[in-house]
Each structure stands twice: as C-alpha cells, then as structure tokens.
C-alpha cells in the first residue's frame, strides 16, 4: 500500500481547497441545523415520543451528509478525474488501484466525520439536542453506513463516462431519498403510503440504524438494516471493481 498515506493527505487538502466540495462537507451540516432548526424548532412533541424535532433529526441529517458525499462528491470527482486524464496519469505511475480507492475512501470518510462533528456541535450549541447512545457505537454506525453509500458512489463512478452523467445519476438517486427516507422529514409525520415506499429506499435503513444507535439501541436490534447495508457494500464493491475504468 505504498503511497496510501501521502495520497490520503493530498486528497484531504484537495477536498478543503475545492470550494464546492468543502461547502457540502463542512458548511452544509451546520447550515442544515440552522435552517431546519428555524423551521421545526426543538420543542418536545408527543408525536415524537416527547423528543424535539431536532433531537430525532440529527441521525437523518447524518444520513443526508453521508449521501451528498457518497452519491454526489465521489462520483463527480472520479468522473472529472477520468474525463481530464488524472486517472490515466495515476495509472501510468506505480499507483495501485487499491491504493487509489482506499485513499479516496479514507479522505472522504475523515472529511465526512469532521462535517458530522460540526453538525452535532451546532445542534448541541443551538438546540441542546439530546444524544442517548454510545459515541463509539454511533461513529462505527456512521462508518458502516458511509462505506455502503460510498461503495455505491464508486459504482456510479464506474458506470458513468464523465462528470456530468455521474452528477445526474447521483442527483436522481439523492433527492427522492433525501425527502422520502425520513432523513429530513421525520417518518412519523409522513403519510402511510410514503412510509411504504420508504421501505424500498436504502437510505431509510441508514436512517433507522443511525437513529437507533443515536438513542442507545443495540446493533442487534437492527439486524435487517445492517444486513441490507452489508449487501449494498458487497455488491457495489464487487461490481465497481469489475467495471472500473481508468479512462
């Protein structure tokens, strides 16, 4: 894995230097707290079992941020790299594909976790959001969900010829899931018909798992979600590895 450390470090720096990417990973999370907080507030509500809207939404916002990175940032960046010949330049050197992908995953994961820390920090400062789980368990949950979503992002990147197509595919998948999976609008206030659709959206399982861990439930209470995410991770990784093209 020669060069992994160096490429990861460069990717982190490139992430921060890229204004659009940096906005979505670092500025967007606090912005979500401010905007949704202004809309819903955090007053305890009987529909939400005595919790406030912001309390129950933090895991959902986490899912949204994981999705923007996985379904938008990753495919678009890789698509652009392929289009402009950056991947060709890497391929012509002694860079092994697994080093390239690992460095990209690690850098994106670190950036996302940093963004999520800002999300929680703002939620806590502005709305005193309640966290009832175990920090380590929640972070592991974030990583597990992130790996599945990122793997799907690399699959999109492997299928799409360029940055534009990657962007379109990412958006088509991202926006419906953002609103229908309980990530931004609490599932409890959605009509039953939409709740049924939500059962078919992968992001729903991300939201369910993260919300469970946020409120201190055990991993074994979410076997279905964990298994579905494992399936997405394995299938996406296998397909992406087969379909990946440097040019």
């Amino acid at each position, binding site marked *: 894995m*020669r060069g992994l450390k*160096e490429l990861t470090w460069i990717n982190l720096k490139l992430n921060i230097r890229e204004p659009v990417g940096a906005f979505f990973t670092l500025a967007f999370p606090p912005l979500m707290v401010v905007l949704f907080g202004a809309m819903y507030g955090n007053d305890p509500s009987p529909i939400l079992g005595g919790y406030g809207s912001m309390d129950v939404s933090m895991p959902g916002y986490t899912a949204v941020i994981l999705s923007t990175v996985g379904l938008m940032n990753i495919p678009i960046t890789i698509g652009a790299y392929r289009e402009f010949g*950056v991947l060709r330049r890497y391929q012509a050197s002694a860079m092994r594909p697994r080093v390239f992908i690992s460095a990209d995953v690690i850098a994106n994961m670190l950036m996302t976790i940093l963004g999520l820390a800002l999300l929680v920090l703002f939620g806590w400062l502005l709305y005193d959001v309640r966290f009832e789980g175990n920090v380590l368990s929640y972070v592991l949950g974030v990583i597990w969900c992130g790996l599945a979503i990122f793997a799907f992002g690399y699959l999109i990147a492997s299928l799409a010829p360029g940055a534009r197509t990657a962007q379109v595919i990412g958006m088509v998948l991202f926006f419906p899931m953002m609103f229908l999976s309980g990530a931004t609008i609490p599932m409890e206030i959605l009509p039953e018909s939409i709740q049924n659709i939500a059962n078919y959206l992968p992001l729903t399982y991300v939201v369910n798992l993260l919300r469970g861990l946020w409120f201190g439930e055990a991993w074994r209470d979410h076997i279905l979600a964990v298994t579905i995410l494992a399936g997405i991770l394995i299938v996406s990784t296998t397909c992406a590895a087969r379909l990946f093209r440097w040019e």
Partner: protein
Amino acid sequence: MSKIIEVNEITKQYGSVQAVDGVTFHVEEGEIFGIVGPNGAGKTTTIECIEGIRRPDSGSVDLLGYVPWKDRMEVAERIGIQLQESALPLRIRVREALDLFGALYEVHGDSQVLLDRLELADKAKAMFGKLSGGQKQRLFIALALVNRPQVVFFDELTTGLDPHARRSMWDLVRQIRDQGATVFLTTHFMEEAERLCDRVLIMDEGRIVALDTPEALIRSLGVERRLVFTVADQWDSQSLVELPRVDRVEQIGERVVVYGSGERFASSVVHGLETSGVDFRDLRTQDPTLEDVFLSLTGRRMQEE
C-alpha cells in the same frame, strides 16, 4: 549495448480500425529511439503497448525482461511515462505532486533536485491548474523522472509548445539520456526526430515504413542535392542544365531550384551563375530531410500540426 526493449509482431485493432498492424523492432540500451509518423499512424498505441498500459491483440513485448501489461508494477517501478494527454487535480501544488508520485515508488529521487533541474523551483507552490502549457509539460517530465527510471517514454513531448520551448525540451531529453536512461519517444515532427533520435522508426497506417539512423534514412534517398535562389522574373534558368553535375532545373516565377549531385555541385552552379552575369539573390543549399524520406516512401506528405 544490449537490447532493452524487444517488440515482436504486435497488432492492435479498435473496432474496424487496425491501429497497429504487425510491428517488430528492438531498442538498444542508452539510445534515443523515436517513432515518427502522421497523426493516426499508430504511434501512441505502440508506445502504450510497450509501457503496459495497453495490451496488444497479438504479438509480444519484452521490456527489461518483463511482459509489460502482465508485470505492470515491476515495469512501472523501472520506467517513466509522459502521456500524450493527461492531467493532475487542478488544485494540487507542483511540489505536492512530485512528493506524491515519489512516494509511490520504491526508489525515488529528491523533489527539490527535480524542481531545479526542470526550472520549476519558483513554481513549487503553484497549483497545477495555474501552470502554463510548457510548465505543465515540464512537471510531467519531472513526474516521469521521479523514480530514476531506466527507460523514459515521451509521447508527443513537444506538441503545443513554441519553437523555443521545443528546443529546450530537446536539450533536456539529451541530458536524460546522457545521465544513463534509454529514451523512447514519439513525435509527428520530422525535424524533432532528425535532430534528437539515434534511430528513427517511420510509421504509417500501423506499419513500419523504415527504421534506421536519420542519416542513413536520408542517404538511402540517393545523394541528390538542391540549390535554391531567386532571380529576376524574365531570366531563363534552363541554360543551367548544361553545367557540370546539374541534373535538372525547376523555375516557378522568380524562384529557381537546381537539382544535382557531387561534392562540387554547388560551386559549379555558383560559378555558372557568376559567368552568366545574372542578378541572383538568397542563394542557399537545401539538404534532404526525413520529411523527404517520408514523402518518397509513402508518396504522401506528413501533415504538420
């Protein structure tokens, strides 16, 4: 001298286009070897099969004892590649790129030495996207040299550069060879191949048209020399055919081209002109070039740019 690259009957087809059609040659250690030919001749496909980036449909390549597309990483450690078209992330800085690429190899040189050598030291902190075409090209050469390669591949190194930058690239390529590397390049500039290469492979439509030193290729055309000058419009130049060592004379308007042979050809013509008392200007000799070799072997002109 030993063979460092051996290419045997390689072919590569893209759809219905036969890009490379049975090409066989070898490259000696320490030489500057060039493939020259028009766009679409199969130069890039050939060089990329040798680098191991592509796999030919049939035929074999031996590079430093390896099969390049199978032993990709062993080969990558020992060669340097400058691609015809490639890029880096727009916001990566010059020194970061050198450090990153260096870190990929088992053996690598010092980034600062390369920055100095390629005159990029004052651009070390500049982002890739802000560099000029020539600076980008120099950075790509630096990246190709970062692992102290035994063989360096340059694909269309000077395309898009101005004549001055092109000449300094030539000096650089000679330096790289003088420091012990073998250089394999492609170009569609005949002059570049002629000035730079020890041996030249002329390629057209996927096949080898000729392969030899530039001098030998030019000599193989025969020893016809040319003398060019301009005269007043109404003067009849045909009388020059009578002079010794002159084969034929062409005149288009004021411009006269005299064809002949022999060491004393030029002085014979000049003497004839002096005696006839005609007012001639801009006299110069024109030696045949690789351009003429290509023309005489394929019946077509190379397209420049």
